[in-house]
C-alpha cells in the first residue's frame, strides 16, 4: 500500500491554524464575545507527572509499608497565631464559594474534612452556617469582593485567608452569572437576585504590600492574635509575591498555580495567565529559604493537585500542605455520566449535559448553574441530585486514598514523616521539569541553567 502523496499534501493540517483554532475563530466570529467557563486550564503544562521518586534501594533504606508508622500531622500558622491549625493530614479543601456550589456541597466538604481531620475553606460569598457547623476546622476567606464578610464569622473562624488572587485568574476577579444568584445567594452578597455579580479584583480597603501589612494586623487585632492569617496568591511573580506576603506578616502563604480551578472566568484567563504549579512550588519554597522562613511560615500549594503522588511531590519540593478544589468536585461526581437517586440507583445525566452543549468528561459549565449532577448549582431540583451523605463519603474516600498514596511513597523513600520528603527524593522526566523544578533530569545530575 502506497501513500497517496496528493491526499497527504492536500490534507496537511496547519499546526498554527489547526481545526481547533479554526473552530475557535469561527465561534468568535459568530458570537462576538469571549467564552466564560469553569474549572481550570486544559492545556498541557509541565506538571508533577514530569517528576518521579527515587525510592529506596541499596543506598536508601525504605520503611515497611503497612507496618511502620509514617506521620502526616501538619501544623499551619505557628508564626504568630496563639492557636495554630493542627491537621491530621497535609491535604486540605480549597476555598470554593457558596453561590458557585450548593449549600449541600459546602456542608459535604465540611463533614468530610472533619472526619479526615483536615480543614475546609469558605469562598466568595461568605460563611454559611451549614459549613461552619459541619467543619471542625474552617478557614475564612477575606476576598476583594467582601461579599457577606462579617466580623462575627471572623471571630468564629479557625484561620483567616486574605485572598489576593487565584491561579485560574490571577489579577482577574470573578463573575457569578445571574442564573446562579438565588435569593439566598443575593442576600448573602447584598445584591439583587438575578444580576451578574462581579467579584472585584482588588481589595477595597488596602492596595500595596505596605498596606497589606496593616490589614493583616487589623485582622489579628480583631481576633486577638489567636488565629493564623493566610495570604493566598495566584502564581505569577511567585518569588516576589511570597516574599511580600511573608514580610507583610503572613503565617501561611498559599500559592495557587495556573491549573487551579474557578467557578467562572474568561477562558483566555484560565489558559493564558499565571505559571504552572510545578514552577510555583519551587519558586515559593526558594523564596522562603531566601528569607530563612522555611518552617516558620508554612507553604500551601494548590492548582492541579489530583493524586497522592502529586501531594508527595509538592511536599518534596517544599510545600507543607496542599489544597484541592477541582479534585473534590470530581470526587463528588462532577462530569459523571450519572447521578444517584434516593435509593442509590444511578440515573443518566447525559441528556442534561447535551442541553448544555457538552458531554460527560468535558463539562466546564459551572457558570451556568445547570450542573447535571447537582454540584455547581443553586437550583433546588438539581441540588437534590447530590445526596449529602453520599457526597461526604466520596470526599472522605478520595482524600483517604491520596493520603495512603502519599505515605506509601514517603515510606518507600525511607521517611517516617511525610514532611521529611525532600527534593533529593525526586528526579525529573523532562528537561522542562528539570529546569522549572530544579530537580536533576533522571539518570543525570543535570539541572538546566544551574550546572
Amino acid at each position, binding site marked *: 500500500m502506497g501513500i497517496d502523496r496528493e491526499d497527504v499534501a492536500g490534507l496537511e493540517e496547519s499546526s498554527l491554524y489547526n481545526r481547533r483554532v479554526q473552530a475557535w475563530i469561527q465561534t468568535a466570529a459568530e458570537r462576538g464575545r*469571549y467564552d466564560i467557563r469553569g474549572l481550570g486550564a486544559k492545556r498541557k503544562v509541565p506538571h508533577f507527572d514530569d517528576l518521579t521518586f527515587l525510592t529506596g534501594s541499596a543506598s536508601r533504606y525504605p520503611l515497611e509499608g503497612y507496618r511502620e508508622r509514617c506521620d502526616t500531622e501538619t501544623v499551619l500558622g505557628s508564626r504568630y497565631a496563639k492557636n495554630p491549625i493542627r491537621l491530621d493530614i497535609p491535604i486540605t479543601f480549597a476555598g470554593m464559594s457558596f453561590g458557585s456550589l450548593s449549600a449541600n456541597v459546602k456542608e459535604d466538604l465540611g463533614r468530610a474534612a472533619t472526619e479526615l481531620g483536615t480543614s475546609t475553606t469558605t469562598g466568595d460569598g461568605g460563611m454559611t452556617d451549614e459549613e461552619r457547623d459541619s467543619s471542625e476546622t474552617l478557614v475564612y476567606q477575606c476576598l476583594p469582593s467582601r461579599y457577606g464578610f462579617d*466580623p462575627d464569622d471572623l471571630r468564629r473562624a479557625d484561620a483567616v485567608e486574605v485572598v489576593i488572587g487565584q491561579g485560574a485568574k490571577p489579577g482577574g476577579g470573578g463573575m457569578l452569572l445571574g442564573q446562579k444568584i438565588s435569593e439566598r445567594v443575593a442576600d448573602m452578597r447584598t445584591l439583587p437576585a438575578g444580576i451578574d455579580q462581579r467579584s472585584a479584583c482588588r481589595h477595597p480597603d*488596602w492596595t500595596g504590600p505596605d498596606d497589606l501589612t496593616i490589614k493583616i494586623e487589623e485582622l489579628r487585632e480583631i481576633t486577638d492574635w489567636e488565629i493564623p492569617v493566610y495570604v493566598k496568591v495566584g502564581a505569577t511573580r511567585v518569588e516576589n509575591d511570597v516574599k511580600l506576603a511573608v514580610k507583610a506578616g503572613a503565617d501561611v502563604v498559599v500559592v495557587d498555580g495556573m491549573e487551579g480551578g474557578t467557578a467562572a472566568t474568561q477562558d483566555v484567563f484560565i489558559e493564558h495567565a499565571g505559571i504552572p504549579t510545578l514552577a510555583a512550588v519551587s519558586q515559593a519554597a526558594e523564596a522562603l529559604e531566601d528569607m530563612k522562613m522555611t518552617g516558620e511560615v508554612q507553604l500551601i500549594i494548590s492548582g492541579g493537585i489530583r493524586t497522592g503522588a502529586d501531594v508527595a511531590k509538592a511536599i518534596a519540593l517544599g510545600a507543607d500542605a496542599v489544597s484541592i478544589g477541582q479534585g473534590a468536585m470530581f470526587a463528588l461526581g462532577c462530569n459523571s455520566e450519572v447521578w444517584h437517586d434516593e435509593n442509590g440507583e444511578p440515573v443518566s445525566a447525559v441528556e442534561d449535559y447535551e442541553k448544555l452543549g457538552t458531554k460527560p468528561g468535558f463539562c466546564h459549565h459551572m457558570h451556568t448553574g445547570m450542573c447535571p449532577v447537582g454540584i455547581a448549582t443553586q437550583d433546588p431540583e438539581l441540588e437534590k441530585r447530590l445526596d449529602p451523605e453520599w457526597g461526604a463519603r466520596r470526599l472522605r474516600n478520595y482524600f483517604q486514598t491520596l493520603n495512603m498514596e502519599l505515605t506509601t511513597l514517603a515510606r518507600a523513600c525511607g521517611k517516617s514523616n511525610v514532611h521529611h520528603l525532600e527534593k533529593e527524593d525526586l528526579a525529573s522526566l523532562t528537561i522542562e521539569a528539570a529546569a522549572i523544578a530544579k530537580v536533576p533530569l533522571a539518570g543525570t545530575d543535570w539541572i538546566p541553567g544551574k550546572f
Partner: protein
Amino acid sequence: MEQRAGGSRIVDFDLEKQTVRELNQYLHKELPKNGVEEVRIFNPDGAHHIAVGMDAPAKVDIMGNAGYFVAGMNKHAEVTVRGSVGWSVAENIMSGTVRVEGYASECAGASGRGGLLVIEKDASSRCGISMKGNDIVVGGSVGHFSAFMAQAGRLVVCGDAGDGLGDSLYEAVIYVRGEMKGLGADAREEPTTEEDHASLAGLLERAGFDHDTEEFKRVASARSLYHWNADRDQGY
C-alpha cells in the same frame, strides 16, 4: 477606672503607656462583661487599628488623630475620633456610629454593611468603596472614585465630589450638595423624590448637619452593567 456623675463608668487608656493590643483585648474581652459604658483613649498619635472589632454598645472617645482602620468592623459601639484618621476608617462597619471630627484618608467606610460613619471635614478618594448597606455622611468633599462598586447604603457629600463618582454602582444611592467633577461608569443623576428628602433629612440630622435637602443632587445606578453585554462600550 472612675465613676462619673450620673453613674456611668468610664475607663481611660493612654497609648503612650499601653499598647493598641492591650486596648483592643480590653475592649473585646473585659469591657462587655464589666459594665463600662465609655472608654477614653489618650495619645493615639496616629496609631493603627484603634478600637477595631468592637462588639459592645459602648462609647469610645479617641482624643486625637488615629491611623489606618480605626473602628474597623465596628458593631454596636459609638466611636468618636477627635482628630483626623488614616485609611479605611470604619471599614466593614456593621452597626453603631463612627464619627471623625477631622479629615479622613482613603477608603473611608469601605465595604460597610450597616451603621453610620460621619466625617465632619473632607474624605479622600474611594470614600464608600464597595459599601454594602452602611451610611456615610461627609461634611466636606470626597475624592475621586467614591462609592466605587457600592452595593447598598447611602453616601451623603455636603461638599464636592471628585471624578468617577459612583463608578459601577449597584443599589447604593449618593447625595451630593456641591459640584461633581464627573460621574463614573453606569452612574447617573436622577431627580430627587419625597422619599429621598425624608431619608436625607434623617441622615443629616443624625450626622449633626442642618443643610437644606433641596440643595442635594441624587446619583444612582443606571443599571446598564447589571448584565454582562459584550456589545457594550469595549472600554468596560
